[in-house]
């Protein structure tokens, strides 16, 4: 595809962050391709998700189950639900080819739950394929700055 305009990519990332903040999980899942995957590595520079553990590594099947769970009534880890606020910025196109682009961006997310506030920050990588007026996510990788630190449970995708 022709290189998307910077505004179009930034607009896509902002819209995605909004879906997550508003807990519109099914709409977020619908952004992913049918063979899409979502990955939050545990190690800095982790090479693959198959031979080393990850904070989250969901192929399409597991991502569907994760999202379905977030709507379950007996969801203890999200009772009460987290409220989140995300900022996404600094988007650049890192690679393009085969009708797709790889976009690198920065994010910060504040999560509030049980009178406690946590801050997550890092780099996101999206592989985007043109789909009509918008994109579909072929894969998304989230590199947290503290990926290998001790964490309490993480229930909300970044």
């Amino acid at each position, binding site marked *: 595809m022709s290189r998307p305009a910077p505004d179009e990519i930034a607009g896509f990332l902002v819209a995605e962050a909004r879906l997550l903040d508003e807990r519109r999980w099914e709409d977020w899942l619908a952004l992913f391709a049918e063979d899409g*995957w979502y990955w939050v590595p545990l190690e800095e520079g982790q090479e693959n998700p198959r031979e080393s*553990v990850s904070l*989250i*590594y969901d192929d*399409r099947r597991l991502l569907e*189950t994760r999202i379905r769970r977030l709507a379950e009534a007996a969801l*203890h880890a999200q009772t009460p639900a987290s409220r989140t606020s995300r900022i996404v910025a600094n988007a650049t196109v890192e690679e393009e080819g085969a009708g797709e682009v790889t976009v690198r961006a920065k994010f910060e997310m504040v999560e509030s739950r049980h009178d406690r506030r946590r801050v997550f920050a890092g780099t996101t990588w999206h592989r985007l394929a043109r789909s009509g007026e918008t994109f579909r996510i072929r894969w998304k990788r989230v590199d947290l700055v503290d990926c290998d630190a*001790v964490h*309490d449970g*993480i229930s909300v995708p970044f």
Partner: protein
Amino acid sequence: MAGPGESEIAGLIRPGRVHRRVYADPAIFDLEMERIFARAWIYVGHESQVKAPGDYLRTRIGRRPMVMTRHQDGSIQVIHNQCAHRGAMVVAKDSGNARQFECCYHGWTYATDGRLIHVPRRHGYPAHFDPDDPGTAMVAAARVASYRGFVFASLAADGPSLADFLGPMTTSFDDMVDRAPDGEIEVAGGVFKHAYDGNWKLYLENLCDAAHPVFVHRSSIDAARAQDDAAHSTGAGEIAVRQMRQNGAPHDFWREQVGIWTYPGGHAFLGDYHDDDKLVAASGDPLFAEYLVALQARKGAAEAKRIMEVTRWNSNVYPNLSFMSQFRQLRVVHPVAVDRTEVYTYAFRLKGAPARMFEDTIAFANVTNGTGSPVLTDDLETYGRIGAGVTSAGAEWIEIGRGYQTDRPDGKGGVAGIDSTSEVYIRNMYDAWLGYMAAP
């Protein structure tokens, strides 16, 4: 102020009951660090994590930061990560290789067995200063021993040998190692570090709890049951979804087909609760068939059959270790405070098994031990709610009496529950707890 006395300690345990203070009182926690964690054999790491001379791994005994090293002579040492000069933490990286350890503050330098070997600018120290005094060191744990590659250390010079401490639990370690066609396993694939606002004892109390999954894991069980298996999977999601469904095994299955066995010292193991032919003894899985051929080739058909017939789920070694052979997972419990606990989890590779089997081990680690797991996050939430719940007076006596009147000897020096939902393994941990805590 003095800590709780012996009669006060004994008064916290009743038949089938335990007082909530044992989960909430900082004075009890401090005493546990002295009387349990500074006396018992504590799991500190696996030999494969320090293969070559100079290899080291940071670990802990209770709250005390330790370093497990492979010393130049090939022995394994466990030393306090603290400089004898001004108390600075000496080793700052989680793991690595070093000829010696040099303190960042004034350059005191230690050998990999903790001995002080160099003090720069010696002229300034007082006349009685003796760098050869064994107390002037990164002080080594009094005892270090290993069983089939699993390394334990004790801060107490006296006490039972590691073999006596483990007792019949050695068979669970055997099961872990025997499954490797080449007879060797190694830690691989990274470490999860997860935490919760609750007491350290809650963790092992949950890992053999067969009655909780259908309640705690309701959300992931139902979400997995509704999952369309036609959805694309690289293999990782398939393992995860199958495991979530297994947590929803019917109550009759837990009662009739899964057992729980406990042994002196607070140890226990839970029988397997899986009937999924991809997850365990995976007769329907070509990769597993390939593995079985490798195992038979190295061990013989009869021995391979014997190994496969050992079907255990979690094995708990009190006070800080739980592991399971079928997917080669290991968890280490690190108490931080009375209401704060960290858990490190590791995966093992079976040497001589098909390489791709390890991918299933990783997928399984992500769903059972993953900080972002749809399963584990509900466990962590539960520990946090217990942590919050036990701080207030009211319901003073916690109930651990499920199956109490039906515990029975197992014929091997242990006590079995009538079925897997018995809380016999918690009562057994409190027997051990009292043994440590009531001894001044």
